[in-house]
């Protein structure tokens, strides 16, 4: 095999057996554990409502704004607990979330959107211009559209704006939620290519939630499959892509339609304890 094997590194992010409850009663994550090694792209897969977004929001601490709460377990970033840090502190420390549905600031121009990403870096002083140019190098289309109001740019451009905006904070780790949502296949490919490039050249680690298992596993070093708030399977990207169950249920090689993982004999449920 000639594939480049990435050196084993320390985890940049460890999620350890977390439980999340919304509105004090709705239990959504029932003990999720996962790990992202420094420099990895990790995919978080699963059907609608599996809890992918909830996991990402638990990490970036955006849950509180939605009346959600991590009630058990812990989250470590470079070995330090971050479950009590505010989203702003997390951004400062290098974790940025790109939310599902992009969430660009609609009435701001593309460039203004990007600049808001540098908010935590303080008054426009050092490096923000350079950072902007760098984002424009990765996304030349944004440079052309930089004076356009974000709300009037295309879905692909908004996704690029959202990723670019996160990059402006100079993150070490990006939590990317459903980048493929509502985009044409070619554009999805383009976005994933850029993600890979950012990962290789800038050394940014990615945890990306995707329903599009096929593409996610082609780009991810490692993957976790989430079902009903639990991790039901994990493994190297290539290994998962070749797994029969994954093929059947998530890659659409089955004629039976999607059933639950639970119904399959070969499926061994893994309990992940600390």
């Amino acid at each position: 095999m000639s594939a480049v094997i990435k050196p084993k590194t320390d985890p940049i992010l460890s999620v350890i057996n977390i439980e999340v409850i919304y509105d004090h009663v709705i239990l959504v994550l029932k003990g999720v554990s996962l790990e992202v090694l420094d420099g990895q792209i990790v995919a978080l897969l699963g059907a609608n409502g599996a809890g992918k977004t909830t996991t990402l929001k638990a990490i970036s601490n955006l849950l509180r704004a939605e009346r959600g709460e991590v009630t058990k377990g812990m989250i470590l970033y470079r070995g330090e607990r971050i479950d009590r840090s505010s989203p702003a502190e997390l951004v400062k420390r290098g974790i940025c979330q790109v939310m599902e549905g992009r969430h660009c600031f609609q009435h701001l121009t593309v460039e203004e959107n990007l600049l808001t990403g540098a908010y935590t870096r303080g008054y426009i002083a050092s490096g923000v211009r350079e950072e902007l140019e760098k984002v424009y190098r990765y996304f030349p289309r944004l440079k052309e559209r930089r004076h356009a109001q974000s709300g009037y740019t295309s879905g692909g451009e908004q996704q690029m704006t959202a990723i670019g905006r996160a990059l402006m904070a100079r993150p070490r780790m990006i939590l990317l939620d459903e980048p493929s949502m509502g985009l044409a296949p070619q554009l999805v490919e383009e976005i994933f290519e850029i993600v890979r490039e950012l990962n290789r050249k800038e050394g940014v680690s990615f945890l990306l939630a995707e329903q599009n298992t096929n593409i996610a596993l082609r780009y991810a070093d490692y993957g976790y499959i989430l079902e009903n708030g639990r991790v039901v399977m994990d493994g190297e990207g290539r290994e998962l892509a070749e797994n029969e169950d994954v093929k059947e249920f998530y890659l659409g090689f089955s004629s039976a339609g999607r059933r639950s993982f639970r119904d399959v004999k070969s499926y061994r449920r893994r309990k992940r304890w600390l």
Partner: protein
Amino acid sequence: MPTQVAFFVEVLAGGLLAGVMYALVALGFVLIYKASGVFNFAQGSMVFFAALTFVSLTERGWNFWLALAVTLVVMVVLGVVIERTVLRPLVNQPQITLFMATIGLTFVLEGLSQLIWGSQPHGLELGIADVPIDWLSQKLNINISQFDIFAAFVAGALVAVLAVFFQKTRIGRALRAVADDHQAALAVGIPLQHIWAIVWAVAGFVALVAGLMWGVRNGVQYALTFTALKALPVLLIGGFESIPGAIIGGLIIGATEKLAEVYVGPMFGGGIESWFAYVVALLFLLVRPEGLYGEKHIDRV
């Protein structure tokens, strides 16, 4: 100029200038609503509190600029304190709860103002008399108060300062970002609470300017709190989220109100000025429910 025309111009100009004063109050509402979705019923009592504080300080012999500076500081601190003590604990509550909280705040502020400074009315002078400009009266036979012109300049300057602040500064950009999308603002690391505190402080500053202008016109007294009610039709027309809307809305209300009073009023035996603004606003709502400049939600995905 023929007297008929001169009279019309005079009424129109008077109305537009009165409209500027309404716009000043409406601005305070717009700022807070835009950034936090709270309709701050207490804006009127903030206007009152600001004017009363300023006038009381000057009456105690304070120098004009010192009193102005101290009042400004007081308003900024007040804004921050309100955000901390009233709004922050209620974050994530339904809008109606926040609205009720600001109604409560209205009465607390009114009580507090009078507790600190007493309840007697004061006159306020800024050194510019509220008298017609001689030149215009003599040459064109039009009476326009020089204070009105001054107030219009002040309002213009205020809007210009706000525009630069919002468009060109990092904090201003963050404010607009928060107004657009709270969640996304949080995600990029903009601390909402700081931004809200800043907005309340800016609204306090706007209240001070409005309070001074209205104080000169009507005296500093409890009735100043009702300026808030004058701003309501302005907001209905201009939209709750638009600064240009507040200005245009103010001008429309001011002008139609005065014109109606003079030309339509006699048909009803006069006295329509006080409620005609609401008629205009309601008619307007039928045509454009989101207001003249109401935020069009951009629906592209």
